[in-house]
């Protein structure tokens, strides 16, 4: 429908820009690197918005499809496309990258060129992950993300950066290689790595269990789900601000996206089988990590634990296997991407000024930083899930979906919403209003215009999506419906086969 390969441009433009920056020489390398990175990522953002506008909401299938042979002998192809499920993740990646680059404008002074290269490579890999329609291509993008992220945490991170970088890398790698085996097995059965074809391939229920577990190993770590979430607080705390933003904003969404793209449509019987297990893990994640968040003294750690809790709603929503639940999960992921990204930026703002994330060092910021306080408040309320913010829609729909399936689980998860409100409000009260503990903390300067510009689009989105969620839901809905129809068809055929074979 379009004259040029939009998705390939989205993927390769940042790579080309990264190459350009790597070749820069001269005195003003840092300055030029920033400029090129910002320009390239802004162009990608504009192109992704162009894609958003030209996306046909009512069509449930894949759009902007591109296909080229890659390993024809093995049925592996360079196959790209978007549907309602992946669309907004691509836009989210394209939105957060320029914001990250702008956020690092002044705080990163060491090895600026390499930093910008890493972020641009990361951007192209993230977009590639969500656009890939070939299982091996997906894996290549999904896994390659580890390289820039390892470097970002390890080089520009905090005091325990080495430990965190290794933990992040090895945890995710271990999960992913098991997924690779599952993908290879599926390819050997189906004869192709094409995702749409794999979705229609039947795997016997016994095999599905193992394949599902292998995918689960990867996605659960990436998500992250309790109890394999422990890498996340470490990685978040040590990563530079922009690294945390990308990590929380986009990388965590790859797990949920993977469940929706692989586990549900390809392995319906195993999904059905493991649903109670996922519910249990989700509820534990929501309640347990919320409680852990309550006692954190480190701001980034608190938000990191809250992310685990919010991802609990996502897994809960996905595995309700009904329209509301899945739509809610997707909405929650997008909303969490915006809100948690912005919250990490909030932490970054005060960290840049005072170089500590210790809650006890802050207090009474509202006096000197009214704009900051206001921005933080909107984001905090979004995170809590106040009606009128985007956070509400996602949580509400997930819970609505859950109530239709299992009231006990939904009630327990609802309890998590209360706990979420508790720790976020405590955090907010402590640092914005709390008593003036340290003079330096109370006299910090307010947001600079650059910082304000970072927050503005995010804050507007939080409110706009809270008031008009239908913009997203209209586009997500048909694809989810398609997924569910397909899921139930496949499930019932499988069961009818079972019934007919058993005496």
């Amino acid at each position: 429908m379009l004259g040029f390969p939009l998705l390939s441009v989205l993927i390769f433009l940042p790579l080309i820009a990264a190459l350009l920056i790597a070749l820069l020489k001269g005195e003003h390398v840092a300055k030029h690197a920033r400029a090129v990175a910002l320009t390239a990522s802004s162009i990608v953002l504009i192109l992704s918005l162009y894609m958003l506008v030209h996306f046909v909401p009512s069509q449930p299938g894949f759009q902007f499809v591109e296909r080229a042979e890659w390993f024809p002998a093995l049925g592996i192809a360079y196959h790209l496309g978007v549907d309602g499920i992946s669309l907004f993740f691509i836009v989210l990646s394209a939105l957060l990258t320029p914001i990250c680059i702008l956020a690092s404008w002044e705080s990163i002074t060491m090895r600026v060129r390499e930093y910008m290269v890493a972020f641009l490579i990361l951007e192209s890999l993230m977009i590639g992950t969500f656009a890939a329609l070939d299982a091996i291509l997906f894996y290549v993008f999904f896994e390659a993300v580890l390289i820039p992220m390892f470097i970002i945490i390890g080089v520009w991170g905090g005091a325990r950066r080495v430990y965190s970088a290794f933990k992040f890398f090895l945890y995710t790698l271990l999960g992913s290689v098991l997924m690779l085996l599952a993908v290879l097995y599926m390819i050997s059965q189906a004869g192709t790595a094409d995702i749409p074809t794999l979705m229609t391939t039947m795997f016997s229920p016994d095999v599905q269990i193992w394949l599902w577990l292998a995918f689960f190993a990867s996605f659960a770590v990436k998500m992250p789900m309790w109890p394999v979430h422990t890498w996340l607080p470490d990685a978040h705390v040590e990563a530079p601000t922009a690294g945390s933003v990308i990590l929380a904003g986009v990388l965590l969404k790859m797990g949920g996206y993977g469940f929706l793209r692989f586990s549900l449509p390809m392995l319906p019987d195993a999904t059905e089988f493991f649903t109670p297990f996922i519910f249990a893990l989700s509820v534990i994640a929501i309640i347990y990590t919320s409680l852990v968040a309550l006692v954190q003294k480190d701001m980034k750690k608190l938000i990191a634990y809250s992310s685990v809790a919010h991802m609990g709603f996502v897994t809960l929503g996905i595995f309700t296997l009904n329209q509301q639940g899945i739509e809610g999960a997707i909405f929650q992921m997008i909303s969490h991407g915006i809100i948690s990204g912005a919250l990490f930026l909030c932490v970054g703002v005060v960290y840049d000024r005072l170089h500590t994330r210790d809650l006890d060092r802050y207090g009474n910021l509202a006096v000197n930083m009214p704009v900051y306080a206001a921005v933080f408040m909107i984001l905090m309320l979004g995170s809590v899930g106040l009606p009128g913010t985007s956070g509400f829609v996602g949580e509400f729909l997930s819970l609505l979906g859950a109530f239709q399936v299992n009231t006990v689980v939904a009630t327990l998860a609802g309890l998590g919403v209360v706990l979420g409100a508790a720790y976020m409000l405590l955090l907010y009260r402590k640092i914005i209003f709390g008593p003036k503990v340290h003079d330096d903390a109370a006299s910090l300067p307010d947001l600079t215009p650059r910082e304000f510009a970072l927050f503005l689009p995010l804050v507007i989105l939080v409110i706009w999506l809270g008031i008009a969620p239908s913009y997203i839901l209209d586009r997500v809905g048909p694809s989810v419906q398609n997924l569910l129809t397909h899921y139930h068809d496949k499930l019932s055929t499988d069961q009818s086969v079972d019934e007919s074979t058993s005496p």
Partner: protein
Amino acid sequence: MTSFQWQSLVPILPEITMAVGAMALLMVGVFRGDKSAQLLNILSIGLLLTVLGLILGITPFTLTTLNNALITDSFSQFGKAVIAVGLMAALLLSHRDLREGVMGRFEFPVLVLLSGIGMMLMVSANNFLSLYVALELQSFPLYVLAALRRDNAQSAEAGVKYFILGALSSGFLLFGISLLYGFAGTLDFSLLAGTLMQNGAVPGAVIGMVFVLTGLAFKISAVPFHMWTPDVYQGAPTIVTSLFAIVPKIAAILLFLRLLNGPFAPLTPDWIQIIIFLSIASMIWGALAGLVQQNIKRLLAYSSIGNMGYALLGVLAASPEGTASVLLYMTIYMIMTAGTFAIILSVTRHGEGVESLHGFAGLSKTSPAKAYALAALMFSMSGIPPLAGFFGKLFVFQSLLESGFYIVAVIGVVTSVVAAYYYLKIIKIMFFDEQQESFDDAPSSQARYFVAALSLAFVLFFIVNPNVLMATTRIAAQSLFG
């Protein structure tokens, strides 16, 4: 017996050229002395280029020569081409060190060539006698090379250790061959396959095969026959270590493939268990023992042990796909190793190569290009996409899953994660640690940068068009299965 026909030597023209050339170069060296070491090195590279041309020029029909002693097919052609390229890389890496001093010896390139002839004959062997002779021809120059720095105790120790264990493994090999001969009455691969097919897995033949495989397992340093590797890698001069790491194992793995899918094909159920054990043990030990190493050469020795484990996984499949995946894996591994050693050799301090891991601290600040190249190679070694190393592992695992070895595959990927730790450790030291002492400023040899650049380009851009190399490996593998 028909009269000897000169045309029958055409298939082994590359080896003959190489042998004659090596002798001629030896003469030059004898008369002109060590001053000519670098000249000989350049001439050797030229000779190898000629040989490579001959290898690629010979039409890839399956031909046997010298009373079935040697066979040339697409498989051996592929193996020889890769070996020739690997030898050239090793000579390029050594060029600078041959200029003067203890390593400036004219024997170096000649010995490399002689060993190379052995390797090429190994992949062509079609009979146990030629196999044994080729293997010894390959090994002896390597023993000498390991001890080339005679004034250095470690180097001498490496040479002796390598020789004794190598001789032991040859003993195993010969014993196995004699059992097989006693059982089948023939040394010819195809006749042996026929006899084994008829008689099934009789104990004598199986024991003979086990001894033969043991002897070969020494050569590829599969656990539990790996003990010599770390010591030899560490003790030998680094240019010799790079040679050990780049080339000989390819010849040995190819020999594994030819034996297991040829004469030993009727014994597949028996050898499968041996290969499973060797590969699992190598992967696990290569990963675990590598974790605690402080010397980069020793670390790479364990890495090579682990990598041989992965290559053996592809052997397990016993199918054309599996064989093709091994060939691809070994080619990618060879290229990555050449690049890795090119960079390690070019990092020096006070004129000496840096060997301790922590000596690389801060390399990313002083020589970012080297650090980034080595980082890319290390990520590739640990099998992270989109680098070439990932695809090597990918196809091995695919063939493994197609043959139904699920548990072995799971063990394989898990050990690859463990091994990733030490590759990452090298990156961590270069990028995250602070520099202790400055490195030499003087640029290293152009030849090393050339090898490193080629290797890096391959690792980065393999993903763009993998099909040429893959198609070649498939053709080569197919010829083995007739």
